[in-house]
Every structure is written in C-alpha cells, then in structure tokens.
C-alpha cells in the first residue's frame, strides 16, 4: 500500500498534486493509496460488503447484511506482506477468511503460508460483489465448490510473464468428514459442512491444491484447477473404516471480455472414494461423484467510455451433488439443480454496485419450479 518505490517520493508534493487532479477518474483503491501515502507505515485497509434482499415466491423475504469483510494488510518490506480478512456474516458471526504471509522471492515466485483461499473455479478466489453478476454467487459455487473455501496451508504462487501464465500450488489441511460423533459431509451440499475454516482444525492428511490460469489471448482467461486428497476425522474414529473419504476435484473455467460483451463459464467435477463406507458408518447420503457447470453472458448497456457500467446478464446453472451414488443409497432427484438467473448489475462507480435479478430454480423432481427475486448492494474498496 505504502509506496516503497525505487524512487523516494515527495509526500507533500504528491498530495498537493492530487488536489489538482479533479479531471482524472479515481476509484476507491487509488483514494486509499492517496490517503495512506501520508501514513508512515505499511498498513493496508480495505474490505467488501453485500447487503441483500431475497424474495422467494409464496414465502417471507429475507433482508440481510450477508457479509461484511474488513481487509487488513501489513507490508514489512518490499518482499514480505501479511494479509488478513475478517468476515462478519449475517452481522453476528465472525470468521477469519484469510490470514497469510506472502514472501516474494522474485517477480515470478512467491511463498505463502497461513489461512488461504483454495483456488478452485472463479468465485472462490474472486468473490467480491463487484466482480460477478447476480445478487447471489452462482449456486454451484456453494454446493460443489464450498465458497468461501479456505484452509490452513503452505505453498507457492507466481506467474510467467512470457507465457502469460499464473500458477498456484498449495498443501492444505482437508475437510473434516467425521467429528467423532457425527458424519459432517452429505448429499445435499457435498463437502460444504466439512470445511474447517482454520478454526481448531483437525489435521492428519495433507491435501494438494493447484491452479493454472492462462491469459495469453487478449480478452480471454482460462483456468484449470485441481484438488486431491483425503478428508480428516477425529482421533477417536480415524481408524474406523468409512470415517474418511478420498476426494479428487477438477475445475475448468473461462472468462471473456470483448468491448461491452462479457461471458464466463465454469465446469466442476469431483469424485469421492469410499462414499459407501462413509454412508454406512454415518447414515448420511453422500454421493460418489458431483458435477455441474454454469455459463453466463452479459452486455454493458452504457457506452464503453463511461465510468458507470450497466450490465444485463443471464446465467444458466446445471449441477448435481448426486451425479453418481454408491449402491447403498438412492439417487435423489432433488439434488440435481437447474437455475436460470437474469438481471442487471449497475456499477455506480468502480467498487460500488446495485444488483437486481430474477431466479428460476428447479430440481430433478417434477413440479419443483420456484421463482425468486433478489436485490442487493455491493461494495469493494
């Protein structure tokens, strides 16, 4: 945040110049940068927030400060930074979303350790409300990729400027599948309830997470993610057959921008070994594989030179947390979801958005169609 640039900066001069730069567009980040230019340390402060209204057909609506995240960073020197995000969910639940130290070995290699986001698909890493269309995050990024998915680990990240490639590889602590009393993961939302989130986590078997992002074709960004490992179980049950399961997850994602048109899509598939033994031990209904995709197109209705942007978008999702099931449980049609979301994202300024959309949700069950109107405000600074 604070400029420790090669050339020492004259702070007072810079600030007086900024006052004269009314003609230049400036967003929140630059404003913070300006303000903190005068602060003689390496602190960063930022955050994002979503205040949402969900109105299902024939049911009460819900109005919620869904999440408010405060970002703090400290730069010890040009190579060593600490980043943390403190999250308030629904006003009263507090979590730490990220807390890691990043050490830049050189321009193309970083070593980082701590509580970090698992790079899988698009939204888990890029989940700030101004970066995606739709009031709610895509549902596949809730049920298949359990956003915000974060665990404690260590790994490498970096990029190749020549190849236009970003890479990440981490060893993480895995999901907790059994806490000694109950099985935690299940058919309806897959691995979501097994996230340990860095809170007194049980650790026995490391898991491997990797992602490659290629951005060498103008306007296009492609991602390939992989996550491989085994879940964890409480000490008293770890040796019991079925208390843990093996997990492989693969993700493919693409984002495309051309002038006022944008599109994105994501495919996720995961395979779970020993789901039958797990279900037998716990009485749960975990599937043996989960898969699905979403695809989205959007168009900015305002001229490209305007600071404000007004996107109209449509998104289609199709995913199944019971894509295949072990022989000891029935396949539930209700776990095969299809959703169409269409609406508007009105970016008032870089970093502030009003959103409204309509969702039609259905499952594999006949007559399961449900409509929902959503509206919300999002900020990122």
């Amino acid at each position, binding site marked *: 945040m604070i400029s420790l640039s090669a050339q020492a900066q004259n702070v007072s001069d810079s600030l007086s110049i900024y006052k004269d730069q009314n003609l230049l567009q400036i967003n929140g980040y630059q404003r913070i940068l300006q303000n903190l230019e005068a602060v003689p340390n390496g602190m960063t402060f930022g955050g994002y927030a979503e205040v949402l209204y969900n109105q299902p057909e024939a049911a009460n609506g819900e109005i919620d400060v869904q999440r408010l995240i405060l970002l703090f960073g400290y730069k010890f020197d040009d190579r060593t930074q600490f980043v943390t995000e403190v999250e308030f969910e629904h006003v009263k639940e507090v979590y730490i979303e990220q807390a890691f130290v990043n050490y830049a070995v050189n321009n193309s290699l970083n070593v980082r350790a701590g509580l970090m986001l698992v790079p899988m698909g698009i939204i888990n890493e890029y989940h700030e409300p101004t*970066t995606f269309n739709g009031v709610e995050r895509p549902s596949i990024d809730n049920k298949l990729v359990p956003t915000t998915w974060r665990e404690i680990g260590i790994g490498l990240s970096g990029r190749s400027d020549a190849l236009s490639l970003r890479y990440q590889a981490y060893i993480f602590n895995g999901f907790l599948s059994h806490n000694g009393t109950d099985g935690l993961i299940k058919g309806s939302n897959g691995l979501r309830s097994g996230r340990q989130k860095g809170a007194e986590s049980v650790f026995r078997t490391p898991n491997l997470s990797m992602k490659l992002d290629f951005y060498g074709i103008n306007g296009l960004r492609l991602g390939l993610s992989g996550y491989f490992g085994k879940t964890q179980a409480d000490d008293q049950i770890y040796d019991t057959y079925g208390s843990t399961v093996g997990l492989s997850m693969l993700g493919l994602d693409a984002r495309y921008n051309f002038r006022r048109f944008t599109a994105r899509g994501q495919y996720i598939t995961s395979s779970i070994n020993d789901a039958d033994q797990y279900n037998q031990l716990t009485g749960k209904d975990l599937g043996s594989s989960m898969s699905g995709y979403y695809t989205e197109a959007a168009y900015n209705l305002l001229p490209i030179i305007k600071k404000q942007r007004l996107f109209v978008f449509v998104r289609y999702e199709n995913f199944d947390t019971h894509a295949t099931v072990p022989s000891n449980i029935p396949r539930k049609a209700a776990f095969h979801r299809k959703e169409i979301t269409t609406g508007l994202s009105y970016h008032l300024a870089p970093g502030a958005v009003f959103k409204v959309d309509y969702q039609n949700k259905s499952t594999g069950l006949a007559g399961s169609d449900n409509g929902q109107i959503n509206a919300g405000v999002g900020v990122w600074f």
Partner: protein
Amino acid sequence: MISSITNITLAALCFFYTTADFDITKLVQKRMQKEITKVFLCNDFNLENISGSPGFQFKNSTYLMDHQIYAINKGDELLGYAFLGTAPSKTDTFEYLILFDQNFIQKKAKVMVYREDYGGEISSKRWLSQFQNSSLGERFIYGDNISAISGATISVKSMTNSINYVYSQLQRQLAVVSR
C-alpha cells in the same frame, strides 16, 4: 516424518536468508539496463537523467506516483528514451518501464516490479505488446483498444491511465519546447 519436516524447514530458512538481501532501486536499474541492451541491441550506451529538464517537466498524478526519464545515448548519438513510472495496483504500487525511440515511438513497455499478487497479470508480454509502436498522440481506452484481463481490472486500468497520462504530458511539453 518429523525429521523430514525439520529438514524442509531448515532448507527453507537457508533459502529465505540467502534471498533476503534486497535493494529494489538497484534491481530496477539492473532490469532497465538489461531491457535497453535487448531492445536497442547495444551494450555501450549511457543513461542521462533528463527528468525536469525542458520538455520533461511534468508532475506526478494519481496514476503516476513517481517517475524518471532518461536519454539513452551511445557516444554523441541519441538512441532513444527510457521512462520509469510508478503506478498504483490494488493495494500497492508497481514500477514500469517504457522505451521510446528518438522520435518517441514506443518500442517496448515492461512491468519491472509488481509487488502484490492481485493484478500481476498486467506483466504479461502479450498484454503489454498492445502499447507497442504507439506514438504520443495515441490514447488508450480500457475495453476498447486495450483488452481487459479478468481478475486484474484495477491494475489494467491503472497501467492504461498511467500511459495515457505520460503520453499526454510528453506530447504537450515537447510541443511547447519545439515551438
């Protein structure tokens, strides 16, 4: 298991220790020299800091937080110019280099130091090549003649705005001097 973790930890500590001695000013200068050698196919050049001299007296701004301009000379011959700028990324700053020929046609843009993880994609050679061969009269519009990079929007806009500002300032100043 424990001993292998200890070995890895010791190796990591040695690694960090050997890379800890670090001077970013020297690093930027070294990288600039290397780029000039590569682009101008010349080893025996010298750099003359002309920041603040007539034609180059422009101020920093929101998207140009610091800058230096050098004339690249080989003996008495002017080969071109090197512009070093500092621009904001999401929560930090980055340094970039623009190399011009003697007529201020851009030969190359390169990100010299990018500090944070977010937005580092702007260092892509492919993306930066969009600015190549441009003259000071050209202006760049994000999403129009400069393509977006998903996940690096803030830095893409910052770099685009920074180059626009530098071009407009150089164009204005040089016009005044030549009058």
